[in-house]
């Protein structure tokens, strides 16, 4: 079985500034991989290069064995790639139900029978979206519910891989925890094969992700399995520098969140 995602030697420069440098990265079935790193380390650029919002200068991006590096975003989406964005994005003039309708229709059009066969009811219950939200406009919903809708829409497409960019931004820890639990459940129930998450709250990743990768200077410099506490502590200490107490604190908080 091919890995869900395989990135080989991807480089990306923005007007001379190196954002991704000979990056190598693999995601296997069932993984929920967190991406951490300083601002500007290349986390969002990596998501964009996978999603096609940004084209890599060189290298290979394989989704389920197919090199999509030259594909436009909508074609990649059609291959089972779902995505949510750093800022909450919905179509301002459409209700939630219309959002789902358009997304289901589009994924069926492109993937035909191979499209994941989701009913709107199932999706609502999967992301625990109250039914009354179906007739609401984006402006009438609070951020947490909007994020649920975005997650559901992304899942409608994402038979292979979900790309989640700071879904907890602007939410409190309890709300963010709820969303992470939902994402973990989507993977458990095999609605998606794997997910990649960019997140600043490390304790959330430590609590829910299967593994964490540290992005530094445009490279995936370290990986840690979340079950491996020693390795996780090492990754965090190289992230926080001398402040090993911060790493210990994260590991402590992780227990509380689980």
């Amino acid at each position, binding site marked *: 079985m091919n890995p869900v995602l395989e990135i080989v030697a991807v480089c990306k420069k923005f007007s001379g500034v190196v954002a991704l440098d000979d990056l190598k990265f693999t995601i296997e079935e069932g993984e929920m991989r967190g991406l951490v790193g300083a601002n500007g380390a290349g986390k969002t650029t990596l998501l964009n290069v996978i999603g096609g919002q940004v084209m890599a200068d060189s290298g290979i991006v394989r989704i389920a064995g197919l090199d999509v590096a030259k594909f436009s975003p909508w074609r990649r989406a059609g291959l089972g790639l779902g*995505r949510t964005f750093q800022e909450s994005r919905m*179509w301002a003039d459409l209700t939630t139900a219309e959002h789902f309708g358009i997304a289901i229709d589009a994924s069926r059009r492109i993937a035909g029978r191979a499209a994941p066969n989701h009913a709107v009811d199932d999706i609502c219950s999967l992301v625990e979206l109250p039914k009354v939200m179906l007739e609401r406009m984006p402006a009438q919903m609070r951020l947490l519910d909007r994020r649920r809708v975005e997650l559901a829409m992304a899942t409608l497409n994402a038979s292979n891989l979900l790309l989640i960019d700071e879904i907890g931004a602007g939410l409190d820890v309890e709300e963010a925890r709820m969303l992470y639990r939902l994402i973990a459940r989507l993977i458990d129930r095999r609605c998606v094969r794997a997910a990649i998450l960019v997140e600043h709250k490390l304790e959330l990743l430590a609590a829910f992700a299967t593994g964490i990768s540290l992005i530094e200077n445009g490279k995936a410099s370290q990986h840690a399995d979340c079950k491996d506490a020693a390795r996780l502590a090492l990754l965090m200490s190289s992230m926080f520098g001398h402040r090993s107490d911060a790493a210990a604190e994260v590991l402590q908080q992780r227990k509380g969140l689980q």
Partner: protein
Amino acid sequence: MSELVAIIPMFSISLVLALSCYLVLKSGEISFGQQAFFGVGAYAGGILTAMFDWPLVAALAVSAVAAAAVAGVIGFSLSRISGFRFTLMTLVLGEFAKEVFVKIEWRREVNGQAAGPEGPLGFSGIEYYYSHGIQHLAQGLIAASVAAGCLVAVWVYGRTGPGRRLVAVASDATLAASVSIDPVRTRLQAFAMAGAVAGIGGGLFAHQATYIEAANFSLMVGVHAVAYTLLGGLANVLGPVAGTAFDVVFLEGLRVVGSYRMVVFGSLIVVMLILRPRGLLGTRTRTVP
């Protein structure tokens, strides 16, 4: 009564052009070039009935196809740009088309008389209604039913997949692409359809006017059509109907304001933009209750 009959064809033709503008506006762009497709339809329809004795319905169908084809070819590159670049390109293309219409010269002998467009002298003798004995009332009926057909087509389009995808693309193309909608293709479809609708309107216009020339397809025609469409609002297809009714019936048809029509119309647009920026009928965007 006779005034009303006189208004119907004018209203119908303006409405069809407004529907064309409405489709482009729905894709999130402003086109100042729909008069070009209107012109393509006018010339195509006029040539077929006046020079080749085609029936009107078939000629109108070809008007639609010809204008859609031109729009499709142009839209292939236009669908990749947006904002003021799009508007500027449509404006330039509209002016270009006007220059092309001046050059159309094609004469053919029909029933012992030369017929067809004469370049800068225009295209006269599109007398299908006259030669087939179609009276004013019947002309109005033809125009009104064609306009109603366009209205229904645009309404259906908006309720089905392509139209809904268009709203999504117009609202946030990146988000649309992330759920496997092809933004370029979606906008191209809409642009070609807008071309077809404008072409039908042009075909009607040619037969109503019996004489057409490049000046009929000037920039002001396109700008004006966009303006009264916006005046009506983009909430649904009734917006263009309301905008056209307001413009044609009150300002032109009833001549309430006489020759100050365009002055009043311009002021009205300014007032509307301040008071009801989303048009007479508004849109469905609601605020938090």
